[in-house]
């Protein structure tokens, strides 16, 4: 075969707008480009001059799929700048809120966006005709994730109850009674989901990835921990800029995030799992093993199983937090504005989400930097296409196109978040 170009003009079942171009020459994948044409919204520019306290609500609007992640990275970066720390029950409630988002977002991706690739459907709606039980179970599980966010955050999308220092209002123990019952059922559903996705056919494709995720001595990471890799990186969030860089890729205008001196890296469920398997709950570990996963997984197509395991963990962890919950004395830690710089990285469903803010004396934002997970994964996605699509080239165009899309969706890419790493292909020849 001489020359073949696979183009997907509008990639579906991702959050946002992106296109894909894979060029094949003489039986080899020559290049792959994931281009993002989501219009820029200039968040880092419009945040300047806003009060520090506005960052959680404004940055939530970067992504309607993972607003909690933006709120969590924002509040932790601001608290770092203001020199306060939020502990005890307030810290646990933040963890609980994040559990809700992981359950909601992971289940959306596992059941509605990614499973159709494995089972050969255009989407969950037509998949429901033949796999009604699985789709219904997914919707029920997703709903419980949303119930956590709605109870604690006020609503599912763009929660209103998160503030720098804590919350506006904290729930009573009694408020959680009904949710705990739903969560017990959700945990059963999550277990079944792991078994369901484990039964899919996975292309045998592995690669020697650099995984980057948070790691905490006592827990599976959500909000806190050091940024570590499987190649010896071990830093605190304020050192992020010393180790990661945004570079111009030589032949394009792309800005991509890379590890200085070593190139691409992978963030998200696969990275978290590989770096933190020992911190999963016993139930999640056992279910992962039964699903055929080892403590290390380097096949990106199996990320759907890892996501299902993380959703199960989040149900388990949410129940643990609710069970131990005592209403705190106050909903938020008092704070005073001051000049300073704050850094934070938290684990969005799709991976590490880094925020940095510089504040003026009055607490207004002088400078903001936000590095979302999808822009960190973009290079890895393109490398996967070059590396993993090779064996599928004898497929007809349409089937090959599906395979390419599935490969991109391994990363659950959230294009709305990634726009400020906009890639434009401009041919000046």
């Amino acid at each position, binding site marked *: 075969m001489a020359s073949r170009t696979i183009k997907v003009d509008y990639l579906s079942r991702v959050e946002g707008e992106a296109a894909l171009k894979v060029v094949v020459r003489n039986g080899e994948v020559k290049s792959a480009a994931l281009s993002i044409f989501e219009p820029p*919204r200039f968040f880092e520019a*419009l945040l300047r001059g806003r009060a520090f306290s506005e960052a959680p609500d404004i940055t939530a609007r970067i992504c309607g799929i993972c607003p909690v992640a933006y709120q969590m990275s924002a509040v932790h970066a601001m608290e770092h700048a203001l020199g306060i720390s939020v502990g005890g029950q307030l810290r646990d409630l933040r963890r609980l809120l994040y559990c809700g988002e992981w359950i909601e977002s992971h289940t959306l991706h596992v059941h509605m966006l990614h499973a159709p690739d494995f089972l050969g459907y255009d989407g969950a709606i037509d998949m429901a005709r033949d796999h009604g039980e699985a789709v219904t179970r997914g919707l029920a599980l997703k709903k419980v994730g949303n119930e956590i966010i709605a109870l604690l955050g006020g609503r599912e999308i763009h929660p209103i109850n998160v503030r720098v220092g804590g919350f506006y209002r904290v729930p009573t123990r009694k408020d959680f009674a009904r949710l705990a019952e739903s969560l017990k059922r959700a945990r059963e559903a999550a277990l079944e989901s792991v078994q369901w996705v484990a039964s899919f056919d996975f292309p045998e494709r592995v690669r020697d990835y650099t995984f980057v995720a948070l790691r905490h001595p006592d827990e599976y990471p959500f909000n806190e921990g050091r940024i570590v890799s499987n190649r010896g990186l071990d830093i605190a969030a304020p050192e992020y800029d010393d180790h990661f860089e945004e570079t111009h890729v030589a032949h394009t205008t792309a800005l991509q995030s890379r590890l200085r001196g070593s190139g691409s890296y992978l963030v998200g469920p696969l990275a978290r799992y590989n770096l933190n398997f020992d911190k999963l709950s016993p139930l999640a570990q056992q279910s992962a093993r039964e699903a055929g996963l080892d403590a290390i997984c380097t096949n990106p197509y199996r990320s759907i199983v890892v996501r299902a395991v993380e959703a199960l963990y989040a149900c388990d962890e949410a129940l643990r937090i609710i069970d131990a919950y005592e209403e705190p004395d106050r909903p938020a830690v008092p704070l005073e504005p001051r000049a300073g710089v704050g850094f934070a990285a938290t684990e969005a469903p799709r991976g590490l989400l880094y925020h940095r803010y510089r504040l003026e004396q009055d607490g207004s934002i002088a400078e903001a930097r936000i590095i979302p997970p999808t822009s960190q994964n973009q290079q890895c996605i393109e490398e996967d296409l070059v590396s993993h699509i090779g064996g599928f080239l004898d497929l007809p165009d349409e089937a090959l196109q599906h395979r390419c899309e599935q490969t991109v969706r391994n990363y659950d890419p959230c294009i709305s978040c990634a726009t400020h790493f906009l890639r434009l292909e401009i041919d000046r020849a």
Partner: protein
Amino acid sequence: MAADKPKPRLGVWKFASCDGCQLTLLDCEDELLDIAGALDIAYFPEATRGKISGRYDLSLVEGSITTPHDAERIRDVRRRSRKLITIGACATAGGIQSLRNFADIKEYAAIVYARPDYIQTLATSTAIADHVPVDFELRGCPISKHQLLEVISALLAGRKPVTPAHSVCIECKLRGNPCVMVAHGTPCLGPVTHAGCGAICPSYDRGCYGCYGPMESPNARSLSSWLADLGMDGRALQRVYRTFNANAPSFRTESERHGK
């Protein structure tokens, strides 16, 4: 039953946005399969593969117009749509990204991008209704699930959607919330903000921040003097109107009175 009668075709379209309002459709966990039974979900790329083709009986449009390409694309969507309904603050008022309308877009691009000369963008972020006729506007950042279901049901029944146009204050009264402004001196945009959320913020001991945008004929000038009495300075007053509905005319006008 008219089994052979084709189901109305639904299209879900995205412009500059966070995807949250169209996610609201997928967040209708209990109703989604019924919706799929009543409507032909013909174009909804966030959820399913599919190509743009023919006409759509109902188009839900998320996001604002911020690029020359999108200004053209919305015309095509309008031509293809029998009913076009905007969902959310971006589509209805320009969204948070309309803060560029008060700034220098070149400076904005230079702050965010290494090569701002490669960025194709308009100097403004504007509502869908500034570009094409819109049949109905659903407010909120994000929209309410219940209101979305009401709009879809109304369309299927051929009636007008019931979405109250009063202020968030009324919703607080209906919920029996004590007024956060009167009881706690907490600044609140409830008196000028369009209903629809169910007064979530005051129910969580915080002031409304106006994410549903201005109600019809709001008296923002009067509210501003109350807010000033509570200690908000000019810059804070300007900011409070310049969030997710900054380009909605009455909020824009009121914000321009402050901060200088």
